[in-house]
């Protein structure tokens, strides 16, 4: 940080501390609410959800051959295959938000072109493993599932529409393309990788297993023995690590896990604190934003509520995962299920800062069309989902 920036920061902090009416009950309540929300996250979501999820993300970044996936984005790759891979591979490739833009630029410039590139850009940030796990855990599995399905299906539609609309200029562009370089890494043995990840994900699922509403049936029985199941999968995991992995690999896995934690956790908790401060915990009305404001704008499942949520999502910047506590706050204040999904879909895919980067790659015309398509598709998914759930 430069000295001028620091001075500016000092001045802003000073003015804020000088003028904020800390003695007013509303502000005090909102501050307390922020910390209560933070504590609720710390108690409910960190140990059995977030920490295991960071380990899974670390493993994915370290042990899966990303190079092997990227070859499906090449200029010569089968079109149908590259669309399908583009719309689902975000789960593996987009664990960190900063990997999305270079991959997008590369698919567009040197690979399969604008269709798969925009499909990847739309679904990638929405379906990375961390985002799905936290969405399902905090906001409910229905919304988690809807987020995955909505992101994948609409990514395909947006990609194909972009390719159709810019059919002409794409053909001219393809002629002047350079071929992608990059070294190929040999992938690890297939079935070992698959069983290792299956065990990791199973452990995560058992640890995070929520108590079902009815105290009977299969889900409840699994809930009763979840510790035993998690212990079992952890034991299997220990054997796998011992037999299949070198010490160096395990060290790299742990280092990568720490990288993600260091990168994401502080922002997430800052987001939780701010969400609590502004909107209060679900069920309370202690936050700064009054309930009727939220209910007026994005309550229910009308076209305007969904549209507004999409626009908000498209322009606002959410640091990785912070969309989840913010939405939790908004839904607690009466935001409808449909608009919630609309915001979840438009939010991570677009923000003002990344629009600038996308613009530098695609140019004005294509970027505008892409933004419009994202807003329309997010609104549509919200409308459909809201009507199914309600």
């Amino acid at each position, binding site marked *: 940080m430069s000295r001028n920036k620091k001075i500016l920061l000092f001045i802003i902090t000073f003015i804020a501390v000088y003028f904020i009416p800390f003695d007013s009950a509303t502000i005090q309540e909102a501050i307390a609410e922020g910390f209560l929300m933070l504590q609720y996250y710390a108690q409910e979501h960190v140990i059995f959800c977030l920490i295991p999820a960071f380990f899974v993300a670390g493993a994915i970044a370290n042990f899966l051959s990303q190079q092997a996936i990227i070859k499906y984005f090449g200029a010569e790759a089968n079109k149908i295959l590259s669309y399908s891979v583009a719309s689902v591979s975000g789960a593996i490739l987009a664990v960190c938000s900063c990997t999305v833009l270079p991959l997008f630029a*590369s698919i567009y410039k040197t690979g399969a072109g604008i269709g798969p590139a925009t499909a990847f850009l739309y679904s990638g940030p929405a379906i990375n493993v961390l985002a799905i796990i936290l969405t399902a855990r905090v906001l409910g599995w229905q919304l988690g599932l809807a987020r995955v399905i909505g992101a994948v299906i609409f990514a395909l539609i947006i990609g194909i529409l972009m390719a159709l609309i810019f059919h002409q200029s794409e053909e001219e562009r393809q002629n002047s393309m350079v071929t992608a370089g990059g070294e190929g890494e040999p992938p690890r043995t297939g079935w070992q990788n698959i069983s290792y990840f299956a065990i990791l994900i199973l452990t995560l699922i058992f640890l995070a297993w929520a108590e079902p509403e009815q105290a009977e049936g299969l889900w409840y029985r699994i809930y009763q023995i979840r510790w035993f199941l998690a212990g079992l999968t952890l034991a299997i995991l220990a054997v796998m690590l011992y037999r299949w992995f070198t010490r160096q690999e395990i060290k790299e896995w742990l280092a990568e896990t720490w990288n993600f934690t260091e990168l994401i956790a502080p922002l997430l908790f800052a987001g939780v604190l701010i969400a609590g401060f502004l909107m209060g915990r679900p069920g309370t009305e202690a936050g700064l934003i009054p309930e009727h404001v939220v209910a007026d704008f994005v309550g229910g499942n009308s076209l305007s509520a969904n549209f507004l949520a999409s626009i908000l999502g498209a322009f606002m910047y959410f640091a990785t995962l912070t969309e989840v506590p913010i939405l939790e706050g908004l839904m607690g204040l009466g935001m409808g299920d449909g608009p919630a999904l609309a915001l979840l879909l438009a939010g991570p895919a677009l923000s003002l800062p990344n629009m600038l980067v996308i613009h530098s790659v695609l140019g004005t015309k294509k970027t505008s069309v892409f933004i419009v398509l994202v807003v329309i598709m997010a609104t549509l998914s919200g409308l459909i989902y809201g009507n199914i759930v309600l």
Partner: protein
Amino acid sequence: MKVEVLGPGCKNCKTLAERVKKVAEEEGLEIDFAYIDDMNELAERGIALTPALMINGEAAVTGKVPSKEEIKNILSKN
């Protein structure tokens, strides 16, 4: 030797840039260092996975932050 770190300006990329500079300093190596964050240039050079480390225009590492040991090996080979 021309050493370039490529990435969109995220934390991992900055970590790599700092680490490379530090290793070069510790080893007393003369490097011509540059940080490239223009997406178009990344794509044209065939870099899809970031952060990436390029030595004299050749990709040495892509998609991860290598340890100081690895960087030392890469730099001393060139």
